[in-house]
């Protein structure tokens, strides 16, 4: 019976993973509010309310992604992938330009960013593709080319927006999946070396602001009032938070607008948390992500089949890359890219994509083989 199966599924869920997700969602609403709070008497933009709406919607997707057997979902992999590519093409044709890149479909603020969903589609597509290759085939070059071909199309389309961060994040996902699926290490190394060889020519294809972001990452004081501003202000925000922080709604870097107002709720939400809650707060955030990521890896390890393992690995790779890049950029460890922090950063598309991804993890876990 359908209902009984679902109740059964609930009892098999990974509640720790769910708890961490809820904690991050709650923190998100609280700190999106704080990031848009600019002092008493000033109107607070309703981002935090919208974020709650996104979480509510995300919960529906989460339930669907949890309860519909992942093997059924993956049978439609080609459709998801085609839809993702289609949306990426559409956004290039009719998308709205926000902060210089054409990445939005629909009305700004309420629209969606196809690139975020493309990440999911790529995970599902490559996982499904690799699942269908025999171990023998996976040890040969064609599998590598096939995987790379699957990832290249969305990478190119996303680069065309241009959204460097979202395009780049697809590559480690792809490599993670190939690696875990048993592609020969030698092949991967060769591809990476080839890729690095092409890098210098790619540099010339970058837009000026993208270049300056990368050079500023190497030397933040090079242009402290221009490209280095965000990095410096973020560093000051995080650093001045100290051990215990300045207190909720007390982060002066954000209050006074030293952190860039337009992107703080998205890209620099972590800086606000770190400023207001100090190292204690940042460690909690990192800890919650550790719970998500290691739960994900445990799920991959306990997956019923290779498809489940690949799906879980892809999700972990995506989330980890986002967390590492975003937190890393707030403290100068990584260049500034517009990669949001999963669940915490304001933004509908990535909240929905992240929750769907976490739903897939639950899905794999529920259908694990129990010994």
């Amino acid at each position: 019976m359908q209902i009984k199966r679902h109740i059964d599924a609930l009892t098999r869920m990974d509640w720790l993973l769910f708890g961490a997700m809820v904690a991050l969602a709650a923190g998100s609403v609280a700190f999106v509010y704080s990031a848009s709070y600019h002092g008493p008497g000033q109107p607070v933009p309703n981002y935090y309310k919208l974020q709650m709406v996104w979480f509510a919607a995300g919960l529906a997707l989460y339930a669907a992604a949890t309860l519909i057997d992942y093997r059924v979902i993956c049978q439609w992999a080609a459709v998801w992938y085609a839809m993702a590519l289609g949306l990426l093409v559409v956004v290039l044709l009719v998308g709205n330009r926000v902060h210089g890149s054409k990445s939005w479909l629909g009305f700004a603020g309420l629209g969606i960013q196809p690139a975020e969903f493309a990440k999911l589609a790529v995970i599902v597509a490559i996982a499904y593709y690799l699942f269908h290759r025999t171990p023998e085939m996976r040890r040969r070059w064609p599998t590598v080319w096939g995987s790379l071909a699957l990832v290249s199309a969305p990478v190119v389309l996303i680069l065309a927006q241009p959204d460097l961060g979202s395009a780049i994040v697809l590559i480690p996902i792809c490599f993670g999946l190939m690696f875990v699926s048993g592609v020969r290490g030698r092949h991967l190394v060769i591809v990476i070396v080839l890729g690095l060889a092409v890098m210098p020519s790619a540099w010339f294809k970058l837009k000026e602001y993208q270049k300056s972001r990368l050079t500023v990452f190497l030397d933040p004081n090079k242009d402290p009032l221009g490209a280095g501003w965000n990095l410096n202000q973020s560093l000051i925000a995080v650093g001045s938070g100290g051990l215990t922080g300045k207190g909720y709604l007390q982060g002066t870097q954000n209050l006074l607008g030293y952190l860039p107002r337009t992107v703080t709720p998205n890209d620099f939400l972590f800086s606000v948390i770190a400023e207001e809650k100090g190292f204690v707060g940042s460690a909690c955030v990192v800890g919650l992500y550790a719970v998500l990521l290691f739960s994900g890896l445990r799920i991959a390890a306990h997956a019923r089949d290779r498809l489940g393992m690949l799906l879980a690995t892809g999700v972990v790779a995506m989330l980890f890359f986002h967390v590492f890049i975003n937190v890393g950029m707030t403290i100068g460890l990584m260049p500034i890219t517009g990669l949001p922090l999963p669940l915490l950063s304001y933004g509908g598309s990535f909240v929905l994509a992240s929750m769907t991804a976490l739903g897939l993890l639950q899905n794999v876990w529920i259908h694990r083989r129990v010994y």
Partner: protein
Amino acid sequence: MIISAPFRDRNPRLAVIATIVGVGLLLLLTDLFRVQVVHGSRYDSREEAQSLRRIRIPSARGEIIDRNGVVLANNRPSYDIVIYLDQLGRISKKTDIVKIAEVNLATLSAALHLPVTLSDRDVRIHYQRRRPIPMPVWKDLHPDIIAAFAERADSLPGADLIVTPVRQYPHGALAAHVLGYVGHAEQTDEEELEHFYYYQPDSAGKQGVERAYDEFLRGAAGGRTIRVNPSGVNVGEVGERKAAVGDRVTLTLDTRIQKIVEDSLARVSLKAGAAAVVLDPRSGEVLAMASAPTFDPNIFNPGVSKEKVNAIFTDGRSPMLNRAIGSRYAPGSTFKPVTLLAGLETGVINPHDTVVCAGEMKIGTWPRPFRCWLKPPGHGALDAMGAIRESCDVWFYQAGLKTGADAITKYATELGFGLPTGFELGRDLAGLVPTPTWKRVQKGERWWDGDTAQLAIGQSFLLATPLQMACVAATWANRGTRWQPFIVKRIENPSGEVLHEQQPEVRGRLSASPQNIDFVRQAMLGAIQAPDGTGRLAAVRGLTVAGKTGTAEFDTREGRINRVWFIGFAPFDDPKVALAVLIEDGVSGGHTAAPVAGQILAGIFQKNLEPVGGVATDAD
């Protein structure tokens, strides 16, 4: 790796992924620890450096009052209209602050019917360097304009009315040279500049008491700490330390006597300058000190036209110069009592010896005779009393030659000639007492008998300031005690605590015998009270005045003029007042200076303004 262990049995490659994730998160955590905990304070101070601004608030200067509590300098409110450039709306790269400010200033200007005097450059510089503090547009406005502004204040964005303290001298030019004036502090303490991001300078005393006691009068600057956003806009106050009002300085000056002195000087038709000093001979307290021409220290306030200030500075008669302490003149015959005392002390002169004045006499090998001011046939036979009374030069040539330069300079020095007085204001000029050694060194010439003769009548190279001469008069008055003249009696901080109380100080005593001093005093009494005394115009009905006139010839480019003097004291038996009057270009001491002294003394004693008390200990 521990974190990868659980995955190894199932998929060794998953273990690799787990290791990467674990190391990545650990890397974030350690770097966060480094930034937030290890270097937290560094970022904390960077955060403060970029968002906190300290603004210096200048203090209000302390009051200056006279010995009776009459206010001579205080502060009045100046109503200034300012604009806050940071409140003129959001300034983007496209909109220029100067344009926005221009529009706002034009609106203000039209509403108040005042011309805009700020240049674009002023606006830009203020915007760049001092954004959160108000930019003054008009200072010290008339109440009508303030009322007009108040009516429209709501429709004039960014504009505000602020009150700033402005130095005020309620009596205008009265005692201007003593009080001095204030201007902007020129040099600012480097350390202070560093401490404050926005520096609002104090006013600093530029002359007189304002300058000499600036340290006390200026008070302590306060400060405000504000938070600014990245555009430099003030978003809130973090802290404030109030500025401390300066200390109150009480002078020994008596405003009423000062007024009498200045009025008396004003009645003389001055071709050049003049000065007068009135002392209490029992303590050295300066009761009045005047210099003419004078100036109104209020003109240095904001709002007064620059032309007025320039006119004062470029006036050829140097109205800013305090002649009472800042100029040296030959004392002329006012020096004769010194020569007499030296002669009496050395025993070469007998009070009753007579000398016949024929109007001139020959000295040494000098081809031309030395002349008396009274043309031949001269004064005829005179004793010492008569010589002082009629100020006979020939008598003193002879007395001087008998006494010798050494003895004369000895007693001159004991009376304070050639010595700094110890007065607090100005440069405290010592004047000059020429000696044979001095002449050889300075002029490369030997000392002739003619020099001694000239010294005896107060000419030669002798120089003294009017203040020094007033001190000489005071020393004669009190029979030989040389007090240090002073003008600041007391300094109190705003809570009334006395920081400094000046006690009278003795700088020297005449070593002469009381009999000889008394004899000289008697001679000086005769010079005023006798019908043939040269100083008879200084006499005051009902008062015994003693003194000496002086007329010293002085060569200028335009010709020879007379520096005319009067020194004296009264009442003779128990002197309460000693004074010196100098007029740079007069007829003679008796004709020009003595009447001024007479008016001063009459004014003081007829109104009973002389300081009460007998000795210094209860001089208050």
